[in-house]
């Protein structure tokens, strides 16, 4: 069963997903993504409680990444399940997404984010 919570923490928009991110949950995720505040620039998607991300889910994340990059924003994936990391790497997308171990690595990290164009601290 898929679920998603959206919260604002400091200057980050945090999307916390759980369950399977697949074709069946895609419409709900797409609706949530399309409802993000216009101009949102710093978005972190917490995938630590996600069991499966299929091609549809990857496509939605790619779309969000493109949308944010278009206006200078950034998308960070937190807590990526290792199969997803492998899958992105195999798909040539290993370097496309910024990835951190947990949301805490960017939200509240004093030097974790240097603004658009910056780097997420390891």
């Amino acid at each position, binding site marked *: 069963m898929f679920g998603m919570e959206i919260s604002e923490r400091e200057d980050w928009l945090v999307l916390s997903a759980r369950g399977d991110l697949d074709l069946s949950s895609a419409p709900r995720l797409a609706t949530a993504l399309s409802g993000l505040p216009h101009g949102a620039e710093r978005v972190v998607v917490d995938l630590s409680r996600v069991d499966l991300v299929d091609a549809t889910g990857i496509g939605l994340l790619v779309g969000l990444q493109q949308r944010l990059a278009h206006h200078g924003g950034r998308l960070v994936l937190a807590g990526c399940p290792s199969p997803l990391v492998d899958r992105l790497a195999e*798909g040539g997308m290993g370097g496309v997404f910024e990835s951190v171990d947990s949301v805490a690595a960017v939200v509240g990290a004093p030097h974790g984010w240097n603004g658009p164009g910056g780097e997420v601290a390891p």
Partner: protein
Amino acid sequence: MTVERVVELTIPSSTDYLALARSVVVAAAATWPGLGDDRLEDLRLSVSEACANAIEAHALAGTEAAVRIRCSLADDRVEVEVVDEGGGFDLDGIDALPAATDPERLEHESGLGIPLMRSHSDHAEFVSSSEGTNVRLVLYAPSPLAG
């Protein structure tokens, strides 16, 4: 002598049954000692992609036909067939998309399912026509199993 066990499943063409389909196939495959957890995860994703494509094909074709899934466990392999009655697809069109490592690939949010099935199974075969599509996925055991 080859010993084959078969589990067959027919699901309504709805994404509501996607999780059920992959759960049944993986549970069946888990009764067979040939695949470890990582490979079961590969199977789970591959079957999910095949079923998702079938459900989408039925929606595009406007048919309410069921999606048929057949999982056979042989001595040396798990083989899954997913059969739909959609309108088929042009495999050459999928292959014509930019390569996975091409930055332009990111402009295409769809069409990832077939590359994923190919990369997560040992053999993926697609036979598609206007009558429907038959996807055959094979994952081999590391070595022949006894019994």
